[in-house]
């Protein structure tokens, strides 16, 4: 989550920590109670809702408290393909974002070092997309890739795209949108860890290994790993729950729906709250498992 600490460095002072549980409690209590009430309890509500049964009244959108694990079975059976697709899209987009972002982060963090003005400008460019609505950007891509747009026409005319096929509505378009939207989330944490990288280590590395490629893989990349981990999590997690890019009104089509779209449809269109909740609970569980495995394997415990 390092990207938010942008430009503040990560210098850990060896500050003696005050030992006053009382003051700490006063400082922590409001925020933690807030999170308890509006983050933790909702997760419990989600689990409770996911086990509700259809109301005896038969009114759409009404459910009774109960214990119906069948909701989970139904969700898996009915929406298995969308779940798999979500993780597939998320994985692809994360890898693409990593490949695209790393050189940028490297350039800003290492090559542009000592040129604070250039660095500041480039960083501003990286975060610039954050400042224009994510939906407007995605919609812009939709227009750029629309069937009558020059890009589609061009691709069709050179035969790269069959004349009866289009870009919008395909998996390509959705993954493209997801990758584009989350590149800054990948670039910033990698930049932060590369920025702290001691260039002398790289120099020492090239002294010892001679080949720049080897130096990169043996020295630079391992040292930037915390940023890579942070970045991949920051990218993968929101992508796996996104439903804007895959929406039919944006870049998606008939067979691009992701978990988010399923939850949205179940929640807003058919008011099947138990199924929507069961899917959310499963998504949350999958993410928690993934994150903990990932973090344990790569040994970065301090995510904050």
């Amino acid at each position, binding site marked *: 989550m390092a990207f938010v600490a942008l430009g503040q460095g990560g210098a850990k002072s060896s500050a003696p920590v005050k030992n006053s549980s009382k003051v700490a409690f006063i400082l922590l209590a409001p925020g933690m109670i807030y999170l308890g009430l509006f983050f933790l309890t909702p997760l419990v509500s989600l689990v409770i809702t996911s086990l509700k049964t259809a109301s005896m009244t038969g009114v759409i959108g009404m459910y009774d408290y109960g214990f119906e694990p069948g909701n989970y079975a139904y969700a898996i059976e009915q929406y298995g393909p969308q779940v798999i697709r979500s993780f597939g899209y998320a994985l692809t987009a994360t890898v693409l974002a990593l490949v695209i972002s790393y050189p940028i982060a490297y350039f800003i963090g290492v090559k542009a070092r000592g040129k604070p003005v250039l660095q500041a400008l480039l960083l501003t460019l990286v975060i610039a997309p954050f400042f224009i609505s994510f939906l407007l950007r995605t919609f812009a891509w939709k227009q750029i890739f629309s069937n009558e747009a020059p890009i589609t026409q061009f691709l069709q005319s050179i035969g790269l795209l069959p004349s009866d096929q289009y870009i919008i509505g395909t998996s390509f378009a959705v993954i493209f949108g997801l990758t584009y939207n989350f590149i800054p989330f990948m670039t910033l944490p990698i930049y932060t860890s590369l920025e702290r990288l001691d260039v002398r280590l790289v120099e020492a590395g090239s002294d010892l290994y001679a080949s720049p490629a080897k130096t990169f893989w043996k020295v630079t990349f391992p040292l930037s790993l915390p940023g890579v981990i942070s970045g991949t999590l920051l990218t993968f997690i929101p992508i796996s729950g996104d439903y804007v890019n895959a929406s039919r009104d944006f870049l998606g089509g008939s067979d691009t729906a992701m978990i988010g779209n399923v939850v949205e*449809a179940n929640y807003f269109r058919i008011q099947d709250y138990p199924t929507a909740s069961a899917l959310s609970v499963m998504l949350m569980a999958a993410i928690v498992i993934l994150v903990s495995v990932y973090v344990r394997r790569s040994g970065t415990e301090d995510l904050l």
Partner: protein
Amino acid sequence: MKRGLPEDPMMRQLVIMAREKMISRRAALLGLGGTAAALSLASCAPAATTLTPAEDLSDSEKILVWHNWPLYMDGEDDGSYPTLNRFMDQTGIKVEYMMEIDDNDTWYAKVKDQLALGADPGFDVACPTNWLVDRMIGLGYLQTMDNANMPNKVANLESAYLGNANDPDRVLSVPYQGIIGGIVYNKKMYKEATGKDAPTSLADVWAPELKGRVGLISEMRDSLGLTLLSQGVDITDPNSLTEDAFNAAVDFIAAQVSSGQIFNIKGNSYGEDLTNGNIIAALAWSGDTTILNFEVGEDRFGFVVPDTGSTISSDSFVIPMGSQHKKNAEALINYYYDPVNAAELAAYVNYVTPVVGAKEEMLKTDPELANNPLIFPTEELLSNVHAFRPLTGQEEQRFATAWQNLLLGA
């Protein structure tokens, strides 16, 4: 599973009533509200909480918030709203006109909490589609209007809309526009692709020449209704429109999607796909055709009722329990039941007007439009137009789920 008459005596009675209503085609297809409302009311009665109308502040607060569909108000394209502005000038009531309803389900999802609590849901009057109106009536979310404040409505409401079992005086919901579902197509591109002038049946839409160039409106009752009709199902009849028939139609559409015949299934944005050429034909709504033509500035699109029949539904004014401006809303409804205003509105939105005398008014200003069967349907056209039968709560849940799962793809 073939569905016979329900076991429950009350339900049985209601179904019999509903069938009796179908004796007059016209009455049945337009008098949608009552029977459906009765059915859903019966099925959900235990859950309905007793809500009371909010205090009416209309005398002191001359304001009104109106949730409506896009492309549903004259002058909308340039924000001038001539009829609405005239209403504001005449009555001094400031109307905040919001195009909030893009889809019945998503709009309902937004406002249902407030509706259930009888709190202010952010609007004083809205025009959802009849099946959703039925649900809202059944749940007791709506205020009863006062006919005394709506003399125009009493005088000019098309008689076909009267006589509902649950709302005989149409005081819980008042029709705004009727909607016919059919095939919208791009005249030039259709001709180029198929060599024919216009599609005549749904089979034409599924023709290989249109592969990947077909759109579908995401409104279940229209898209599936048209499909069911093309498969010989009587969508007004519970014995014909069974769950099996419904699922077969869903499977049929799913096959069209997976074969790539259907480009996309969307809400109102199908219009965009038509204007930018993504699709050539769509199963969609009559009124949009004229508006799309206006938007592109030429007579590019046409609308046909398929030979197997079209669907029809209506959108109605409703006032939620939480509204504090009922009288203002009634004034608005009364205003739009003035044939002059109704004609002016119909000339723009091109849907089926429920106001008697509007056609006569329009003959004075725009005879060509007045003879447009999509606005003032002929008996002949109406004989081939069908209303989707009312669904019970459980049915609605299952049908809607099947339809949504189709939309979500495999």
